[in-house]
C-alpha cells in the first residue's frame, strides 16, 4: 500500500519522520485531512492538533502556527512550535490556564496585554486537548 512520507519540523528540532496512511492537521480555519495521492497543496496552520494515523496506531502532536505542504505523497509540516503528546502534562497546563484566566480578569479589555493573554489561552487549549487524548 502506498503511504505518505511525513515529517514534522520546527526550527529547533526534528519531531517526526516516518510513513503514515492518514494525517489530520489543524489548518488556519479548521482541520484538514490528507490521504495518499493528495493534490499538491500549501496551507497555513493554526493552533491545534495533528493526528498521524498508521494502520494500527495514531500519534498525536500539538502545533502552534506554521505551514504545511503536501506533494508527491510527501507531507511536510513546518511548525513554529510543536510538541509530542508525551511531552504534555495535563495538570500543568490546567494550572497555567487558571493563572491566565486570573490575569485576564485583571487586565484591561483590548489592551495589548489582554490580546496576548487570549493568544496564550488559545495555545493552552490546543495543548490541553491533545494532552487529554
Amino acid at each position: 500500500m502506498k503511504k505518505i512520507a511525513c515529517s514534522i519540523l520546527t526550527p529547533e528540532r526534528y519531531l517526526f519522520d516516518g510513513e503514515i496512511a492518514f494525517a489530520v492537521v489543524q489548518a488556519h480555519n479548521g482541520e484538514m485531512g490528507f490521504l495518499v495521492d493528495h493534490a499538491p497543496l500549501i496551507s497555513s496552520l493554526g493552533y491545534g492538533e495533528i493526528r498521524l494515523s498508521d494502520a494500527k496506531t495514531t500519534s498525536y502532536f500539538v502545533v502552534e502556527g506554521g505551514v504545511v505542504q503536501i506533494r508527491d505523497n510527501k507531507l511536510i509540516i513546518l511548525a513554529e512550535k510543536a510538541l509530542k503528546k508525551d511531552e504534555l502534562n495535563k495538570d500543568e497546563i490546567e494550572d497555567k490556564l487558571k493563572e491566565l484566566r486570573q490575569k485576564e480578569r485583571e487586565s484591561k479589555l483590548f489592551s495589548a496585554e489582554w490580546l496576548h493573554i487570549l493568544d496564550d489561552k488559545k495555545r493552552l487549549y490546543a495543548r490541553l486537548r491533545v494532552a487529554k487524548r
Partner: protein
Amino acid sequence: MATQRDIKKRIQSVTNTRKITSTMEMVSTAKMQKMKQRLEMSKPYEHKLNEILSNLMSTGLAVSDDPHFNEVSDARYILILEITGNRGLCGSYNTNIIDRSFSFRDKLAEEGKDTQFYVVGKKAISYFNFMKVPMYKSMLNPENKLTFEDAAEIGNELSNLFLSGDFHEVHIAYTKVASSSSQKPTIIKLLPILLEEEEIKDLYPGSHLEYYFEPNPLEIFSYLIPQYLKMKIYTCFLESSFSEQFARRVAMKNASDASSEMIRDLTISYNRARQAKITKEISEIVGGAAALK
C-alpha cells in the same frame, strides 16, 4: 644555571596549566558536539522552508511586491549585525570577525555609505568601547541558551528597522561553518532579501507544479518571509557558537600540546641538573679522599 628546585617548581606549574587547558578542551568539545546537534536539528527546517519558498516563487507570484525585497537604489544607511562570543581564550575567533567587518565598513565608507553596528557578544562590545567606535545597539551573546524566540525577536527588530527606512541594508557578520573542520568569518546580506533562485532550482529540480493554496499564496508568503529571516539569524547564531567552540578547542589543544612539549624540555634540563649535581658531589668526594692520602 637553574637549580633542581627551581626547575621542579616550573614543571609543577606548567603541569597545572596543562590540566586546565586540557579540561577546557574537553568542555568545549562537548559544547561543540551539542551545537552540532542543534545545527543538524535545524538544517532540515531551513531546507524545507527554502523549498516551499522557491515553490511559491515559481508559481509566478508577484513576490517583488513584498517590502522585504525593496532595494533602495542609493543605499546610504547600512546596519551590520555582528555576532561574536562572550569569552576569550579561543584563538583569533573574535578578532577575525571584527577585522572582517571593519574592513567591510571601510570599503563601504569609500562608497560614501554610513555603517552602524548592532553588536552581539561581550568581546566585541569591549573592543568597540576600547576603539571608541559607536554602537547602534549591543547585547550579550545568549550562547547555548539561545532559543528560536531570541532569534525571532532580533529578526523582528531588524526587519522593522529595514521596513521603516531607518536602514537601507542589513548585513550579518558571523563565522560561517564551511565544514566541520573549517570556519571562516563571513558577511551576508540579510535585507533586502536576495533569494538565489538559480541555486534553489538546482537543488530541487522540477519544482514548478501548480499548488492549491489555503488561504491564498500572498498570505502564506507574507508569513514565510519573516520566518525565513528569523531562521537565517537563528542559524547564523548557531554556526557562530559552533565556530567559537571549535576555535576554543583548537586553541586549548595547541596550548596543551605546547605545555607537554615544555614539560618534556624541562624534565630533560631537570635530569641534567641532577646529574651535574651528582657528578659534582662524586668528584668532590674523590677529590677529598685523594687529599687525605
